[in-house]
């Protein structure tokens, strides 16, 4: 399974690309179609629990989940947990992106650095990142530093690989056009290299962000007093499945929303690539 798939999106889908729908499902219809299955299942379960066909103790019906959301929101707890998790993801993602971009750029530019650094990074990449947890706890303690480091490590590799791969696959022929017009190394970077690696970079960032959300859960499992991962552990220990499902739903929403935010922010720069929606 590739990083992109682990992170929950298809790599073939370019940011800002509109999917082609079959002719019978135009406009908003396909969006509604996606709601049919979950709503039917939810309603069915709700009815089953209310009529006593099932007891709903381990699998709470939607109304119980909704109650839990409202309770947690009213006590202000929900916001606290969301905020804690989001801040961790943000800090880890920023750190991992920064390190991954720098390392990828340096390794991409210089053959010597690539030969020196790439084998080590590839070897480290093969380590499942969760395996670092005990070491990070020893090194950084059980508080924020170890959590953010773990997320950053998870984000670092896809970003590093994305940047390195993008730089190595820059079209030599287009770089030559830059040479014909005597661009300085700085101008060549800004006007040719950066625009041509941007699409792959955005894909790498989205993959990294997806992994960031994965690792924040692992990080919060290793002992946290707040955060959505804490809600999960707490729900398990106190036997509150509705709290677990609530946290899972919020993860889904936050993951989708942050991915949407990222691809929307990048879309104006990738307009030239958007081949489906504008072609005639």
């Amino acid at each position, binding site marked *: 399974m590739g990083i992109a798939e682990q992170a929950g999106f298809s790599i073939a889908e370019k940011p800002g690309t509109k999917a082609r729908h079959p002719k019978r499902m135009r406009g908003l219809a396909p969006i509604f179609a996606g709601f049919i299955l979950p709503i039917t299942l939810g309603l069915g379960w709700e009815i089953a629990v209310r009529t006593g066909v099932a007891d709903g103790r381990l699998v709470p019906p939607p109304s119980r989940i909704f109650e839990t959301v409202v309770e947690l929101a009213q006590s202000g707890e929900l916001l606290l947990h969301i905020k804690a998790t989001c801040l961790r993801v943000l800090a880890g993602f920023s750190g991992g992106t920064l390190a991954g971009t720098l390392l990828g750029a340096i390794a991409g530019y210089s053959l010597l650095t690539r030969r020196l650094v790439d084998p080590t990074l590839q070897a480290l990449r093969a380590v499942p990142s969760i395996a670092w947890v005990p070491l990070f706890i020893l090194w950084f303690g059980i508080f924020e530093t170890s959590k953010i480091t773990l997320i950053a490590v998870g984000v670092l590799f896809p970003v590093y690989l994305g940047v390195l791969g993008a730089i190595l696959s820059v079209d030599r022929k*287009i770089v030559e*056009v830059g040479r*014909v*017009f*005597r661009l300085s190394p700085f101008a060549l970077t800004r006007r040719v290299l950066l625009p*041509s690696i*941007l699409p792959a970079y955005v894909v790498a960032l989205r993959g990294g962000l997806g992994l960031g959300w994965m690792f924040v859960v692992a990080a919060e499992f290793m002992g946290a007093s707040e955060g959505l991962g804490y809600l999960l552990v707490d729900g398990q220990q106190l036997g509150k499945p509705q709290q677990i499902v609530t946290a899972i739903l919020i993860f889904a929403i936050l993951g989708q929303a942050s991915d949407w935010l990222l691809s929307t922010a990048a879309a104006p720069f990738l307009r*030239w690539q958007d081949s489906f929606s504008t072609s005639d």
Partner: protein
Amino acid sequence: MLEAHQIRKTYPNGTVALHDVSLNVTAGEIVVIVGGSGCGKSTLLRVLSGLERPSAGWVSVDGARIEEPHPAVGMIFQEPRLMPWLTVRQNVGFGLSHLPKAERLARVDEVLARVGLADYGRRWPRELSGGQSQRVSIARALVTQPSVLLLDEPFSALDAFTRIELQDHLLELWAGSRQTLVLVTHDIEEAVALATRLVVLKPAPGRIATTFDVQLGQPRSRLSIAFGDEKRRLLAALDHSLSEFRAQVSG
């Protein structure tokens, strides 16, 4: 005037791509370099452009040595090589970033009109046909007003009709500005249609086999007997240069 003096190019693996190639091109000439594959014609053009350094010999344009790309020398490649993230207008203005915006836009629009793409300025490269893309790449090279324009098999990737159309278009542009053109091709008809002088290369190592002036005025009718005569003359020269090579290989 473009001058190449005893150009040699030996690649690190020992392949001798060019051996003592000398060429003088006077201003306003259209020199077409013809030869089979592997005779170093593209290498020669890359040396003339300054993209590659010769192992020995030198190139100069109007007295200035060409050791790396030079503003007096423009280059058009086989592929359009447009930046997909820039609009047609931005692509054409790519080499003009040192100019103030108003002047840049004026020059870009003027040259776009000359290549017949005045209405295409806002398009993305992916929205253009192959012929249109190559016109944009010609416009991008023309807009900096180089005195020498080098063309590396510029029309070989196009279909036959578009190719003829663009050859005629190139001649129209040349009639207006009288830039020096050096064009590499393996298309005999293209060579005879465009050249004022033909340079035939022979392979292994790449050398000049023969050069001759084309005895035709412009415009040229591709159907005329004289055109056919020139084509046969060129074919004969090419055949001669290659048969020598074949004899060498088999002997």
